[in-house]
């Protein structure tokens, strides 16, 4: 017959160890991607010659459409959110009172963007792009924002 103390240990040890560990250290990683990847178009599109029709055939429907001072703007964008956090502490608040806790959290949203501006006749007038996803998470979030 199995000793009740052995059964007790199998039930209680995991509970106690688990409760203590989960109270002490935690680490999380979250990623959220919205939209499709934005292609590199610098080689294909030419200011003054590329038409609205060609842009729509190549890139599909834009994510944003707007009119600005007589120009029609198409914006294609993908956002990539990365979030991570590390927490370390001893959960003594209930039995001891003060307890210590160290934590560090960070969230970084990067954008891949293509901006196209067309004349009312549908000819490309301006082009701009940004590839935010090429910046590595840790290096970017630990760097200081440039003025």
């Amino acid at each position, binding site marked *: 017959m199995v000793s009740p103390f052995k059964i007790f240990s*199998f039930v209680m*040890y*995991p*509970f106690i*160890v*688990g409760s203590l*560990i*989960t109270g*002490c*250290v*935690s*680490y*999380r*990683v*979250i*990623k*959220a*991607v*919205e*939209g*499709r990847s934005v292609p590199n178009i610098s080689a294909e599109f030419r200011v003054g010659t590329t038409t*609205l*029709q060609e*842009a*729509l*055939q190549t*890139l*599909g*429907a*834009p*994510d944003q*459409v*707007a*009119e600005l001072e*007589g*120009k*029609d703007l198409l914006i294609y964008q993908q956002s990539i*959110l*990365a*979030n991570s956090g590390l927490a370390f502490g001893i959960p003594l608040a209930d039995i001891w009172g003060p307890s210590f806790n160290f934590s560090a959290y960070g969230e970084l949203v990067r954008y891949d963007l293509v901006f196209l501006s067309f004349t*009312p*006749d*549908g000819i490309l007038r301006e082009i701009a792009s940004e590839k935010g996803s090429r910046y590595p998470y840790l290096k970017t979030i630990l760097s200081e924002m440039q003025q």
Partner: protein
Amino acid sequence: MKRFREPLFVLLLVFFLQSCAGWAKNMDYHPFDASELDKLTPGKSTVAQVTEMLGAPSNIVKLSNGNAYIYRRSLSKGTGIWLLIVSFGNYDKHYDQIVIFFDKKNIMTHYGITLDAHKAAYGLPF
């Protein structure tokens, strides 16, 4: 090796007892049928014909030489995994979009289409 067996078993039991996973799916649905676009002709089709086929747009934007009618729907999928002290979350959102351009006489001039919502996927954040 034998003396490590019990602590290892306890740790593994803890690992599985305190782990869980979850999945979520969100849909922002508009019932337009993109295959209907083949029946439309740039330079001929009107706003009335487009809205009869595709329904009411999600948004209308005024442009320099007319308007753009925007049809949009999205599908997002989320995954969450908690493994004792480590947790992972992943959220993926994609869109089906049709943007139809009309001139000042409400005649369709161009359109752009992206059908990407089906690419939303469950997964891990790396």
